[in-house]
């Protein structure tokens, strides 16, 4: 779905992306992970064309993102930002259906789709008339997810969608997200800083550090065969203190919380 070849991006003296090459398969779920400032968000925003590479090439479905084609290409992608990025002057419903009405969908087409998405994301129908400020953080993220999915895009990009939520709601949403990803079978790329979340939601994890891809693989690979000492440190840092309470340092502990 995405093909990156030697992509580099600088911000002044800082290198946000350093010769990144990777391929993302259609229908796969990929997690981008790494410490703050490692370039994972930059990479995600580059995929939807909010940032252009300085050098190297980026192909979406075999085509590069050009100013002429970008809007059409973006409609084939859904994008969820950390804080939701919902428009505060629109109700939940208006946020979700904004693009659909912009591209001329009829109400007969919009309404069933809205109901379908509300069911999929477990969003209460009476919340659709509310403004973002009148909804909880978790509900806002569900609205944001519905908005991203409205036009039934091929790709879903999520930038730390659960970052600002409290642990209980976060757990609930992780479960829901996994179900949604499984039900839709879309190409999903999710940015997170939580290794457990990455392992839970994605088959493939891209661990980044200082603009470089450090290791690509499953959570199991990271734990059992770290590519470099940094990976080992990163995994250790992410282990819950709860682990030390139990005898088992097994990975299962990540999701028993």
């Amino acid at each position, binding site marked *: 779905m995405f093909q990156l070849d030697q992509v580099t991006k600088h911000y002044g003296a800082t290198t946000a992306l350093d010769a990144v090459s990777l391929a993302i398969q259609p229908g796969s779920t990929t997690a981008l992970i790494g410490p703050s400032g490692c370039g994972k968000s930059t990479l995600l*925003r580059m995929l*939807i064309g*909010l940032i252009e590479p300085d050098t190297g090439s980026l192909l979406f479905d075999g085509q590069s993102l050009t100013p002429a084609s*970008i*809007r*059409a*290409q*973006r*409609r084939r*992608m859904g*994008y969820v*930002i*950390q*804080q939701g*990025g*919902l*428009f*505060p*002057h*629109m*109700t939940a419903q208006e946020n979700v259906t*904004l*693009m659909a009405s*912009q591209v001329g969908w009829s109400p007969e087409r919009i309404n069933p789709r809205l109901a379908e998405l509300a069911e999929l994301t477990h969003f209460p129908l009476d919340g659709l008339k509310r*403004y*973002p*400020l*009148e909804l909880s953080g978790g509900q806002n993220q569900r609205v944001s997810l519905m*908005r991203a999915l409205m036009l039934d895009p091929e790709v879903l990009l999520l930038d730390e969608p659960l970052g600002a939520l409290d642990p209980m709601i976060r757990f609930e949403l992780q479960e829901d997200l996994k179900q949604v990803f499984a039900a839709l079978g879309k190409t999903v790329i999710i940015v997170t800083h939580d290794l457990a979340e990455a392992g839970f939601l994605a088959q493939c994890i891209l661990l980044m550090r200082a603009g470089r891809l450090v290791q690509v693989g499953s959570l199991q690979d990271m734990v059992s065969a770290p590519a470099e000492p940094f990976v080992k440190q990163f995994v250790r840092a992410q282990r819950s203190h709860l682990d030390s309470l139990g005898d088992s340092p097994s990975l299962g502990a990540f999701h028993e919380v």
Partner: protein
Amino acid sequence: MKSNSIWLLALIASLLLVLHAGCTRDHGEVAIGSKKFTEGILLGEVLTGLVADAGIPVQHRRALGGTRLLYNALVSGEIDAYVEYSGTLLHEVLADADLDVGFESGTGSGTGSGPGPGPGFEPRSEPGSGLSPRRQTATTRERLAARLAEDGIRLGGAIGFDNNYALGMPKPRANQLGLTRISDLLAHPGLRLRFGNEFMDRADGWPGLRDFYGLPQRDVRGVEHELAYRALASNGADLTELYTTDPEIAYYDLRTLDDDRGFFRRYEALLLYRADLEQRLPATVTALKQSIDLIDAPRMIAMNAAVQIDGRSEADVAAELLRTELGIDRVVKSDGLLVRLLRYTWEHAVLVGISLTAAVLVAVPLGIVAAHRRGLGQVVLGAVGVAQTIPALALLVFMIPFFGIGAGPALAALFLYSLLPIVRNTHAGITGISATLRESAEALGLPPGARLRRIELPLAMPMVLAGIKTAAVINVGAATLGALIGAGGYGQPILAGIRLDDTALILEGAVPAALFALAASWLFERAERAVVPRGIRPSV
């Protein structure tokens, strides 16, 4: 977007057209002008009454402003006649033409103090070295008439009185110091001198007088002419300049100091009218010429006193003169308070409504452009900022060459004044939208036009409305100054009240103006509630 801006341009153009049409008048009607002080208005009423008596439709554009404004309005044909003073003509209006070798000053531009095109606006005569006083001669009058003819103006004749400069002080104080002549002042350097601002600045006022007599006083300050009288009465000052037809001379029991060395000049009241009246409406000329030798100095003082001190209306006093002197019976219709208020309110609402609407139509797009193009934005914000720093009075006067007198320049000036708050708030409202929301809109694939219409403008709306509200309140206040150039509105009673020292009259304009501003403010708060969605209302 392109069709939008064309539509906008068309709207502005039609607005300007309406505005322009609003300022031109019917050509069958005669317009009499008057300066913005009691004597000027009285003379305007007299001329108006004379023309009306001849059965010619006539309009009195009262209290228009100062000398230059009136003279230019006469030359450009916005008014057909008014009364001017010889000294003023010689040394203010026609300063370039060397008509009188001597040195004269002018009272003609009225009290010159207070609001209105102030001294800085009037070209000053050169102090020069040839300060030797010289009386105006018939030859001077002839040369003046010849010079006026070049501008298409006829000098109809003298009204019959002079209104000269003099120095005055309360009689008890003058007696105590033994002062009768200006030369006597040399022995009293400690006197407190308070002059009208115009007299202070003009070379033919205090600076010339000081140099001519070698006056030693140091405590000399400029104040409002009317306030100077009150300062004398309350012993806050010792001496001020007078106009010899001021009724206050008698009212405050002032002694006029003898100009023993003859510095001050003559200011004969002269009838001026447009030369083309003789062909266009010859009957008007005949009617106007009835004013020649109609009013002598005591009569003028009495008339001024009837208005300034007894509080009668100018129209009423002028009508009385016409009745007793010429047997002209003219019904003076004076409107009741309610009718006046309605008229002021209507005029004010038109000024504010049109200028504010035009400002919104121009400023919101400007603000949007400024928000999207940073370089251009700085230029736009800078330009509207500069427009805001021009003092309201100066701005009004700058507009006169383009829009004439009346509502036109006032509308243009108010329009310029209203731009800044709206442009700045629109700009701030749009640039203040968080990066997350911008990115959201972009990532959704919304085209730029839809981003502006569906995201940026609605999010900026509370700020834009706040800007419009600020502009409206400023506009309502500034519109009162419009009365200075004949635009009407609440400023009319305020200015008249200041001139006549009539608090009730000032309140007649000030109170409704304040209420009007409050109402405008309230209206925009209501609009905010109606237009801004619940999600971004400040109260949420």
